[in-house]
């Protein structure tokens, strides 16, 4: 495959003593739809802002389409080719969407008036109402229209569906698939709506406390990842690198393993465990297991050490 759409190596950002993002290694292939998951404050927005030159990294490096966002000249080329829909839309509040379209098109060599007109109609955007007077949903749609009409190769979307009703979410998903994903273009999207992520993404990364706990193809999670529930006293936390998370609840242990669950279960049995269940693990469940720390059976969730389990094939 050609050069990564987004690549970070040891990327970090500290605000004083607070490390918002640490040692982040992301590799997002062109054409991937990458769901970036994490709790509030996990560092998702800071990461996105570093990719767009809005925040300066304190460690490591980032490349977007092979370009370095900390260099002024390269940043301009990134901004031409990457569309960003931030969570807080900082557009000129007094301007109408129609005016925003006119202002934006001057900056983007690949701007498409056709796309802008088509999207305005399909998304039913009131093009002549001041931006600040639009509902949150309509504001999101305007931001998305601008990003898509700019002909962006990569879309960076920070919780694009937050606060939207199901009908609007549905329209936005459809638009993203028809106008962007189907053209083989890349999306890097953060979201708390794991159902949507499961629908449209093919990669997920889970961030917690500024660190990447897990990065995997969604397909691999569906096919290989298993939740193993066992009961028994003093079960060891296996040294297997395939162990993603281990939590305990009284006599019951819950393990999430990245592959070869049967072999893992057999190993537990040799330690006197009774295996109660081996089942596929949904994204929501996986997320909760990974970020839930309070009932970990080891100091800290072992998942924090096990990641990343990804392999680019």
């Amino acid at each position, binding site marked *: 495959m050609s050069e990564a759409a987004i690549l970070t190596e040891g990327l970090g950002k500290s605000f004083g003593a607070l490390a918002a993002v640490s040692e982040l290694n992301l590799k997002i292939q062109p054409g991937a739809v990458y769901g970036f998951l994490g709790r509030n404050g996990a560092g998702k927005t800071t990461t996105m802002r570093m990719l767009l030159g809005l925040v300066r990294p304190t460690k490591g490096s980032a490349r977007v389409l092979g370009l370095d966002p900390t260099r002024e000249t390269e940043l301009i080329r990134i901004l031409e080719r990457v569309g960003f829909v931030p969570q807080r839309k900082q557009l000129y509040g007094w301007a109408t969407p129609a005016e925003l379209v006119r202002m934006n098109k001057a900056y983007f060599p690949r701007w498409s008036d056709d796309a802008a007109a088509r999207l305005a109609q399909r998304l039913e955007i009131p093009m002549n109402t001041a931006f600040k007077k639009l509902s949150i949903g309509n504001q999101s749609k305007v931001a998305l229209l601008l990003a898509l009409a700019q002909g962006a190769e990569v879309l960076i979307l920070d919780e694009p569906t937050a606060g939207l009703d199901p009908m609007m979410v549905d329209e936005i998903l*459809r638009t993203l*698939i*028809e106008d962007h994903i189907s053209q083989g273009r890349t999306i890097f999207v953060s979201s708390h709506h794991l*159902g949507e992520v499961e*629908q*449209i993404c093919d990669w997920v990364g889970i961030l917690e406390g500024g660190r990447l706990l897990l990065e995997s193809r969604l397909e691999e999670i569906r096919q290989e990842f298993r939740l193993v529930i066992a009961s028994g006293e003093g079960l060891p936390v296996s040294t297997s690198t395939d162990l993603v998370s281990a939590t305990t609840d009284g006599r019951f242990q819950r393990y999430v393993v990245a592959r070869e669950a049967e072999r893992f279960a057999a190993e537990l049995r040799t330690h006197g465990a009774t295996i109660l269940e081996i089942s596929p693990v949904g994204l929501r469940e996986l997320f909760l297991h990974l970020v839930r720390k309070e009932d970990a059976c080891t100091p800290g969730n072992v998942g924090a050490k096990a990641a990343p389990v990804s392999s680019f094939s």
Partner: protein
Amino acid sequence: MLLHLNPSSGVPVYLQLEAQVKQAVAAGALRTGEALPSTRKLAAELRINPNTVARAYQDLERDGVTRSVPGGGTYVADGLPGLLKSEKVKRLRPHARQLAVEGRQLRMTREETLKLLEEELDKLGGQA
């Protein structure tokens, strides 16, 4: 084609798609030579990643349910003898299991259970 997905069912979406297309073919809702929607169109319709649809279409072709024409779409394959073998086995297995379990609970011997089954098959007569 009326396809519907349940993303939270735990069954991978591409498998849900495959199963529904197979069922539609088996039930005659999709006829030989009929075109399936393009990958992009179906992905947009169902709000899922186009790769997921592509994956399901690949599997369907591998299973002989569909054939694709280079550069021009996916069609229901011809000469499909009703349900696929694997599909038949999948549907019948729960009944076979039921028979085995009930037979065992009633303390029937293996031969007695099989004989019963054979008798029922004989009653149907006709084909081998």
